[in-house]
């Protein structure tokens, strides 16, 4: 199955990013394809490259980079939501891309499922 993922909350403050990641890993393990992860609302803060959590905690930013680099899943950030919140190219994680809601619409349309994680 092809699955799109929408993340609507920022890292650490809400569990949404964690659940989305764990779901994506489990889905791939079962042979499904994750088409893209799209960040909206405060979710755009997931794409910040400068997260530096305590050593004994998970690194949410690195998880997205891993999914992108190893599993070739595009990490898309909504430009309108990102501009409001100060997420610009300079602070973006490797292989994060700033894009529009049109791309999100394509994701919603072309996949078998759209999984939404938020608050």
């Amino acid at each position, binding site marked *: 199955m092809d699955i799109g993922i929408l993340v609507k909350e920022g890292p650490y403050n809400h569990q949404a990013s964690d659940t989305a990641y764990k779901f994506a890993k489990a889905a791939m393990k079962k042979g499904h394809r994750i088409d893209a992860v799209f960040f909206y609302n405060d979710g755009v803060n997931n794409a910040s490259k400068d997260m530096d959590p305590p050593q004994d905690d998970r690194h949410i930013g690195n998880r997205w980079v891993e999914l992108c680099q190893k599993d070739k899943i595009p990490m898309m950030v909504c430009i*309108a939501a990102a501009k409001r919140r100060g997420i610009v190219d300079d602070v973006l994680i490797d292989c994060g891309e700033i894009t529009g809601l*049109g791309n*999100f619409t394509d994701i*919603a*349309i*072309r996949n078998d499922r*759209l999984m*939404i994680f938020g608050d």
Partner: protein
Amino acid sequence: MEDDEIVKKIMHVMRKAPHGTIYTYEGLEMILIMAAYDQDISVAFIDDGVYALKKDQDTEGLEIKGFSKTFKALDGYDVENLYVDQVSLEERGLIEDDLLVDVEVLSSAEIGKIMTEQDVVVHH
């Protein structure tokens, strides 16, 4: 594009109050973009989401950008299926005439049935 001929049923659900959080506003921005894609789009107003349609909203005193009138534009974008949950309206002491736009007031069961027919449901 490959998706040109796919028409999916996509429902947006407004369940939060406007202004205290951005979800309704950014939800509306998403709907306006999606409306250009010739999909079968509907919007359901449930719980505090019905307050998004309340007449007479004036955000000037907050210095926050208002957006309630944008709901009136949905019609022009061919987003015509606006469902309002009757229980939500009644709990808030509101009637249809309190709302900015023409809507279809339905029972929760009726909206629930329409929900199950969707390909995608997005809560804002």
